């Protein structure tokens, strides 16, 4: 532990602490707010909601995104739903808030701050009010009240949803609120911009450098403070459930400029995705894990079996999850299901391309409930599967395999969502806050909207109220320095003139990362991964080919700039995974497991957030830690056996 990491946590009881904190935050008059400009990078749920809210309050917003429209951000893909602790009875409110709080902390395996998880739970109900008033068409009960469903890792029904398109509907709510502010002149939209650097003036974040993706020009944006809401970095694995352009560049560049990175190795793998089918496959599509309610997961008992699943008789099938976990069966948590699937496939029992797949079989449920019932339950999912794979999942068992899905790690922020760089706020998946070592299902959308609608508008206002002055001359110098830096970086990549396209390197990086720093990790593999990434990275710098395009638009260059940063981030992820000598949540170190093969935490040594600082003087990283203390909840071990 050291003193310079100060999370600015509230003192006293965690319950109600956020409301007390708000009372002590500074405010500004509307006239004063008009004088401040804020840069927001990213237009997903957290970026859009923060932009809309801050603009409503009177600030002038510059919103930058690489999309052509804010409606396209990756939040749009979230299927399942959003958690909220709501009760019609006031006296039950505390109980439901406590439940969501507990499930969030337990789900994260005690590696997140208690006070932030409590705040998330307390604010959750207002999020639903907010979204409904924007016109989000949530599912309803017959009496017209909001409907909920149960989600993985939860015993209560508190997930609000709009069919399998909850993320889309919530994003459109925020996008419309944002559009209204564009109309009122409070938000200026800069689409098709890749943010490639952060501008820091006298230790305060005051701007960004962006590349205009249409004409290739580098542009400078200045403001009183900067908000990064740029999402997660699962694409470090090349194949993931993320949209193809999702990347780490903005947060990585901020990190290189001094923003600390927290727990980079904490990445979540989703157990039920459609497996890869060949080398040109570009993404892994998620199939909602609700399918595990009615699908039985199995593999042939015979090793390397090439038989069609329909022809494998019952006694030659291994329902390995039911066998290993008689109590939970196919409904064990995400990370457990993923690990068991990988383990058995590595032994040679896997099916499909490269032996990386297991069957998810709906047949018994169809026999029990009838085809119509199953179709009504999963209709659009089954159609989606058939469109992609070309097989009818009601006749042939589905093939599934775990895939990288979400990154809990991200830029370190304090309780106010500000990084260690003054004036640099980080929201949503891009930060490290409430999810700990494993995110609870349906908490991602919730965190984004809490950050954007309710937390950051208050804390940003307060910070601005106390940091009113701007030194315009120093800003211009800092912008020039950053612009030159980016210009050199872009030109250096174009100068390589090797023979391999960027995807070749990205695929190879992904293979190293998924096999050695993915579902499970061990010291030897991590050490060799470090060497392999370094070799590949050197090859990238000598053998990359970016075609000449005779216009500023250059998609291969865009990708190369992202992959360059993924290389550096991978190295930090591996180092972080090596240093954390315990298993917790989604971080599973093979050396640290119980007799039953479950994750074994080491609270004595690792009940902390690993905080990585980049030292530009010698181009190295230093690991610090922020201790985690639990007052409201006792540290205990989960057990699904």
């Amino acid at each position, binding site marked *: 532990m050291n003193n310079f990491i100060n999370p600015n946590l509230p003192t006293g009881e965690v319950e109600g602490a956020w409301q007390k904190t708000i009372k002590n935050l500074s405010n500004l008059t509307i006239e004063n707010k008009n004088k401040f400009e804020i840069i927001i990078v990213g237009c997903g749920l957290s970026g859009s*909601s923060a932009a809309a*809210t801050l603009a*409503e309050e009177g600030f002038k917003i510059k919103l930058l995104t690489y*999309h*052509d*429209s*804010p*409606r*396209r951000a*990756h939040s*749009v893909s979230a299927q399942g739903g959003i958690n909220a602790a709501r009760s*019609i009875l006031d006296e039950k409110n505390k109980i439901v808030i406590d439940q969501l709080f507990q499930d969030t902390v337990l789900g994260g395996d005690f590696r997140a701050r208690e006070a932030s998880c409590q705040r998330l739970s307390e604010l959750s109900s*207002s999020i*639903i009010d*907010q*979204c*409904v*008033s924007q*016109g989000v*068409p949530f*599912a*309803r*009960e*017959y009496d*017209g*009240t909001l*409907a909920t469903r149960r989600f993985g890792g939860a015993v209560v029904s508190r997930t609000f949803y*709009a069919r399998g398109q909850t993320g*889309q*509907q919530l994003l*459109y709510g925020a996008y*419309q*609120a944002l*559009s*209204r502010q564009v*109309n009122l002149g409070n938000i200026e*939209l800069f*689409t098709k911009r890749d943010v490639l650097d952060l501008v820091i003036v006298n230790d305060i974040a005051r701007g960004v450098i962006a590349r205009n993706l249409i004409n290739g020009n580098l542009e400078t944006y200045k403001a009183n403070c900067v908000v990064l809401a740029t999402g997660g970095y699962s694409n470090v694995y090349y194949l993931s459930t993320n949209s*193809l352009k999702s990347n780490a560049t903005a947060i990585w560049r901020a990190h290189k400029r001094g923003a600390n990175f927290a727990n980079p190795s904490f990445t979540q793998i989703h157990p039920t995705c459609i497996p890869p*089918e060949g080398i*040109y496959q*570009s993404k892994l*599509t*998620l199939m909602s894990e609700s399918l595990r309610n009615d699908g039985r997961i199995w593999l042939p008992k015979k090793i390397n079996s090439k038989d069609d699943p329909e022809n494998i008789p019952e006694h030659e099938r291994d329902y390995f999850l039911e066998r290993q976990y008689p109590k939970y069966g196919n409904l064990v948590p995400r990370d457990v299901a993923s690990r068991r699937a990988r383990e058995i496939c590595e032994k040679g029992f896997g099916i499909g391309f490269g032996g990386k797949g297991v069957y998810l079989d709906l047949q018994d449920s169809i026999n029990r409930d009838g085809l119509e019932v199953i179709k009504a339950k999963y209709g659009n999912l089954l159609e*989606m599967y058939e*469109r*992609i794979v070309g097989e009818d999942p009601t006749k042939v068992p589905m093939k599934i395999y775990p895939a990288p899905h979400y990154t809990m790690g991200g830029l370190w922020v304090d309780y106010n969502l500000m990084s260690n760089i003054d004036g640099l706020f980080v929201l949503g998946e891009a930060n490290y806050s409430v999810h700990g070592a494993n995110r609870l299902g349906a908490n991602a959308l919730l965190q984004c909207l809490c950050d954007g*609608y*309710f937390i950051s*508008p208050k804390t940003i206002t307060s910070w601005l109220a106390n940091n009113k002055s701007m030194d315009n001359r120093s800003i211009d110098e800092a912008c020039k320095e950053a612009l030159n830096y980016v210009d050199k970086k872009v030109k250096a990549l174009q100068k390589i003139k090797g023979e*391999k*396209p960027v995807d070749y390197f990205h695929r190879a990086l992904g293979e190293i990362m998924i096999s050695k720093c993915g579902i499970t990790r061990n010291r030897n593999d991590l050490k060799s991964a470090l060497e392999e990434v370094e070799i590949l990275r050197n090859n990238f710098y000598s053998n990359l*080919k*970016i*075609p*000449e*395009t005779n*216009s500023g*638009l250059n*998609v291969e260059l865009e990708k190369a700039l992202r992959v360059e940063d993924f290389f550096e981030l991978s190295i930090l992820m591996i180092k972080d995974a090596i240093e954390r000598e315990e298993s917790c949540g989604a971080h599973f170190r093979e050396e640290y497991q119980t007799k039953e093969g479950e994750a074994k935490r080491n609270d004595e040594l690792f009940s902390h957030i690993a905080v990585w600082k980049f030292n530009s003087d010698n181009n190295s990283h230093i690991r610090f830690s922020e201790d985690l203390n639990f007052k409201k909840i006792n540290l205990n071990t989960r057990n699904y056996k």
Partner: protein
Amino acid sequence: MRDFISIKFKVWRQVSNESNGLYEEFSLEKVSIKLSLLEALDQLNEELTTKNIRPITFDHDCREGICGSCGFLINGQPHGPKRGTATCQLYMRNFKDNALIILEPWRAKSFPIIQDLSVDRNALDKLIISGGYFSTETGNSPDANSIPISPKQAFSSFETATCIGCGACVAGCKNASSSLFVAAKLAHLGQLPQGINGKKERSIKMRKQMTIEGFGQCSNNLECEAVCPKEISADWISWMNKS
């Protein structure tokens, strides 16, 4: 059925909106039928890059049919031959060995060409910006259960709210009309009790903006409905005109 096929692509190539365009032909061998059409284009682009030929520019991102980024004409049809399917969800098993696939950008006055198959659909955002929202502000929302909404009403609103803003309806219409796009947004908001008050004003603003952006009049050909990857019904256009 063969696992790998050969494809001949005929692709519209245009460096920018200011330059002239032309068709170019490319052959691609050993295309797995398990790939999506966009993945086959990725494969082709890797080949072009290696040969130092400018890769084909097209929009895409989520590759699961929900972000609305992708979309071009595939053999003359927006999003290709499969109903209710966005371009990224079209798989090569839908094509025969040695097939010719013609790819062209959306053609509409309101969608200037950026490059090759990529067009500027900013005009759709401008329609939303003109009035496609409720005037609610953060922190001023009543209890979400204070206004009951029947499941039928919520679902009907949801169905129109699924529009992904891809622009296929405009590209499919001979008048390049955005009527379905606007009707879908008006129906999403106008069917909810929260949206009753501003219903008329919203409609006036958005329809006025359609003209400003250069979208044409509804052609009543129902092509918009036929090409919509979310299968939004053209009946909503009549609903819009009536209300």
